[in-house]
């Protein structure tokens, strides 16, 4: 009775419902596959790099991380100078970029008149939009000659003779080198760090700041004693994000670092980073050991940035979780 009594209209309606349910399942699964693709991509990158880097690790063992030789003629390779260059340039970048970014974020959130806030933050963010290769050209052809002629000799003469710190600033004033690379990296990561800082600073509840002003704090005291402690985790996240960018930056560094596989104390020496070595030598690498060693360098870089960026993400998530909580 029930089945037979269904009208044609009812049947077509239920067929329609069935069809749209099928379409729903299809749509949902297509989007799921796309999302899983992101995960698969990350795994594929790791697997491909590990597999192709394996011959180099197998051949050189732990020596790959501790040796200083990079000798294509004898097919002997090790990563120490590149890892050293990568870490030192990024460290210089952080020393310069973190205080400057803090200043910019402070200016935008606390000091600037409202009409000035948006133009200034847009301008700073435009620094991030300029392609890395442009920084490289500018660094090599414009900045380095001026720096080598006017600034470096002065630094070498005056600071180079200081105890302890002096050794960092010795050697011929070439303009290019590790310090120049670090400085340009700093300019490149300032927009990333300052925009995170600006965002987390604006999360501080107005009541907190007003209370501090109410008991007579100066603007600086409010920022240093209230805003910064409240946003500490987020600020660290922003710094890690900038560090992750600095570690992997390629073209700008390739132009100005001098590309030499040597290890020196002075920051004015020429050096190399993992990324600059890849950019310079990958297409010219002859023989499986050479290529494999370069891919091994790429894997090391990927792992270092992975850890740094993961840390950044975790810190920012903690900041976000705290912001969502009722306190």
């Amino acid at each position: 009775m029930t089945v037979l009594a269904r009208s044609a209209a009812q049947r077509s309606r239920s067929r329609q419902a069935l069809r749209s349910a099928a379409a729903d399942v299809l749509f949902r699964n297509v989007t799921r596959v796309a999302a899983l693709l992101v995960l698969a991509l990350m795994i594929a990158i790791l697997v491909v790099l590990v597999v192709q880097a394996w011959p180099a690790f197998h051949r050189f063992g732990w020596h790959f991380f501790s040796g200083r030789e990079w000798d294509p003629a004898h097919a002997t390779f090790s990563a120490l100078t590149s890892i050293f260059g990568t870490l030192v340039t990024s460290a210089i970048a952080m020393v310069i970029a973190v205080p400057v970014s803090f200043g910019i974020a402070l200016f935008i959130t606390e000091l600037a008149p409202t009409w000035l806030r948006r133009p200034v933050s847009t301008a700073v963010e435009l620094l991030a939009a300029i392609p890395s290769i442009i920084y490289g050209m500018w660094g090599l052809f414009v900045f380095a000659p001026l720096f080598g002629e006017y600034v470096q000799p002065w630094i070498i003469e005056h600071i180079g003779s200081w105890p302890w710190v002096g050794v960092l600033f010795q050697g011929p004033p070439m303009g290019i080198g590790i310090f120049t690379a670090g400085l340009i990296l700093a300019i490149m990561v300032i927009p990333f760090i300052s925009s995170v800082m600006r965002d987390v600073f604006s999360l501080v509840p107005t009541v907190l700041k007003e209370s501090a002003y109410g008991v007579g704090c100066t603007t600086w005291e409010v920022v240093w004693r209230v805003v910064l402690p409240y946003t500490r985790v987020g600020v660290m996240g922003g710094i890690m994000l900038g560090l992750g960018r600095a570690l992997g930056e390629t073209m700008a560094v390739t132009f100005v670092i001098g590309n030499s596989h040597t290890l020196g104390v002075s920051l004015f020496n020429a050096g190399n980073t993992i990324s600059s070595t890849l950019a310079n030598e990958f297409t010219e690498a002859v023989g499986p050991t050479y290529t494999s060693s370069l891919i091994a360098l790429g894997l090391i870089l990927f792992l270092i940035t992975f850890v740094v960026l993961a840390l950044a993400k975790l810190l920012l998530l903690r900041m976000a979780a705290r912001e969502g909580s009722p306190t």
Partner: protein
Amino acid sequence: MNTVSARYLRRRVVNWVNLSMSVLGTLFGLFWLVWLLWTLVDRGVRWLGPDLFTQSTPPPLAPGGFANAIVGSILITALGVIVGTPIGILAATWLAEFSRRSRLAAVIRFVNDILLSAPSIVIGVFIYGVVVARFGHFSGWAGGLALAIIMLPVVLRTTEDMLKLVPDQMREAAAALGAPRWRVTVMVVYRAALGGIITGVLLGVARISGETAPLLFTALNNQFWSTDMNRPIANLPVMIFQFAMSPYDNWQHLAWAAALLITLAILALSLFARLVIRSRSFVK
């Protein structure tokens, strides 16, 4: 009394000094932006001319342009956009519409954020290992795929953020009218978030059109006119790199002209994307 006012004075001085440093820091940041742009204009403008857009890259010390590099760049960027955008939007849809709170979604978000900032040169190495080494030669396809991998996380991130901003009431209202889920997503949610999604794509294009590192050993470069995606293809970033590092005057001039054009294009795109997000999005 005296110590109190001394302390007060000291606090005022500390405040004044530190706030001045903050202003100086801001000027420090803007200083480099102005200097960079001025350099490009100063060194680039004088070499601009119609030849740049009509002729291919010349041999050393001969006149020419970089029409082939412009076309090659457009081709591989287009490939990057065509491959990266749909995957990014669909993946973002799953994260924002179907599994907002699942553990898997959290993992994917995490991985995507890492890919977003991962060194682009490593993406180049990856594509070299998967595509170039397999087929035995550099190609436009490889370059475009590398750019797609860089594009994908940018689109995913912005799209997800934008979809999340669409109020749930709109989804519920559409569902209450009897629309199946996919129609709710496509015809209501996408439409509401369209401005934001377009912004994400524009930002992605801005990001990949200046990328050099991932193209060095995927698309390589080509001195001649070629639209064959199966072979090495000329492109602006790698051309700028090679020509700027060369000892030949005319190549360096071309590099500066190309640098000026590509930077202006990217800055215009970024500013335009910001305008779109500000005018089209329904959230302030």
